């Protein structure tokens, strides 16, 4: 089982930057999971006790918006990581996640991985170097979507005007 898990962990592109011994350590905290299409992986606000590497299938990140229901904010496909709220307190999911189709993934025990990171700063730094590019990429993607690039000039002007009027509007940084 462990050897099989090590092979799967080593094959996942998200962990490509880890050294083989670091991947082997990580594989000790990992197990295989399957989610059926439509199954909830985690709920918004719940304790973030795991993260997953998606091997096949895809997952929708969602949030409940009063008056509008469950809204998908982003979809994540095979080859990427699901979940980073476990990294920092309060260790609670900011969004929910639901399998869009049958998903094969590797699950990790977040508390165990955190303990390893704290005990071994080199390991912790290596883990952060896997997560930060993905976090940056998703932040940049979110900023692009905020620009509403595909809007017609009229719609974009309306959005800009509404943002300017909003008392909560923030700077662009």
């Amino acid at each position, binding site marked *: 089982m462990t050897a099989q898990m090590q092979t799967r962990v080593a094959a996942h*592109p998200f962990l490509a930057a880890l050294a083989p011994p670091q991947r082997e350590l990580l594989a000790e905290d990992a197990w295989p999971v399957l989610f059926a299409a439509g199954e909830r992986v985690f709920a918004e606000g719940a304790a973030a006790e795991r993260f997953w590497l998606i091997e096949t299938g*895809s997952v*929708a990140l969602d949030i409940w918006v009063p008056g509008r229901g469950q*809204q*998908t*904010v*982003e*979809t994540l*496909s*095979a*080859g*990427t990581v699901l979940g980073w709220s476990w990294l920092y307190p309060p260790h609670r999911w900011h969004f929910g996640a639901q399998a*869009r189709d049958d998903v094969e993934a590797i699950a990790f025990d977040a508390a165990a991985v955190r303990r390893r990171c704290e005990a071994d700063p080199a390991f912790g730094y290596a883990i952060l170097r896997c997560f930060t590019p993905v976090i940056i990429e998703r932040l*940049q*993607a979110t900023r*692009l*979507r905020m*620009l*509403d*690039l*595909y*809007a*017609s*000039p*009229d719609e974009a002007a309306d959005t800009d005007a509404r943002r300017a009027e909003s008392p909560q509007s923030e700077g662009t940084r």
Partner: protein
Amino acid sequence: MTTLTEAAEAEHADPAVPRFYRVVSRREDTYDTVTMELAAQADPLPLFAPGQFSMLTAFGIGEVPISLSGLGSSGGDGGGPAALRLQHTVRAVGAVTRSLCAVRPGQLIGVRGPFGTGWDLASAIGHDLLIIAGGIGLAPLRPVLLAALEDRSRYGRLVLLVGARSPADLLYPDELEAWRERGVEVAVTVDRPGEGWQGNVGVVTSLLEPAAPGANQTTAFICGPEIMMRYAAQALIALEVPTQRIQVSLERTMRCGAGWCGHCQLGPLLLCRDGPVVTYDRASELMRIREL
């Protein structure tokens, strides 16, 4: 002395003089976008290549650059060296495009062209062809995808990644399905899913990872808002696709279409003549230049 016939021929060879094309069909693609098919009335224009554009005149309103989105039924394949029929997909954003979108079958519009550079499909022979479209940017890419499908065996994988604002903004949904059935790997994502959307949500570059083209055998054509093209090109470069194998279609205000007036100057390029399709090794610096 110039005869009347010679004068008429000279006028017709003049790229500044529009020719009459009649609207033969009009399809509403989305709430603000229309695809029209135009048929030459007398002298057809020379054949267009995918990626080239027309200057379309809505009489009494004005003239705008619009890319070829298809060669009509009797227009391209085997139809001879002339553009008997042209398809254009127009999004209503201002006075001229609104007027063009409101055309009815039977109406005449003015057409000049073909102008500019096209997608260099020959450079993709033997490679995987990756087409990345954002919003109305799918329109100029449609004819090049159709051309690749006509000659399917010359290319490796055909991958089409499409980003749209919302499901309601998605162009050619029926054709996307038909292309999928013909073996094109089509992936679509939207920024704002709305009710009932079961597909991907996120920026178009998020489709790249799962599509994972083999970097050293990929040729990529990108068209969409400039910032989207820049991000898509950067994502491809990160996957080690060489910059000269990435082609983008640049837009600037265009007037004459023939490199005379200078309205579309971008650095050393006159985009109506040297563009709109430019390889990314040339385009990347120029895309940082702000419009006047």
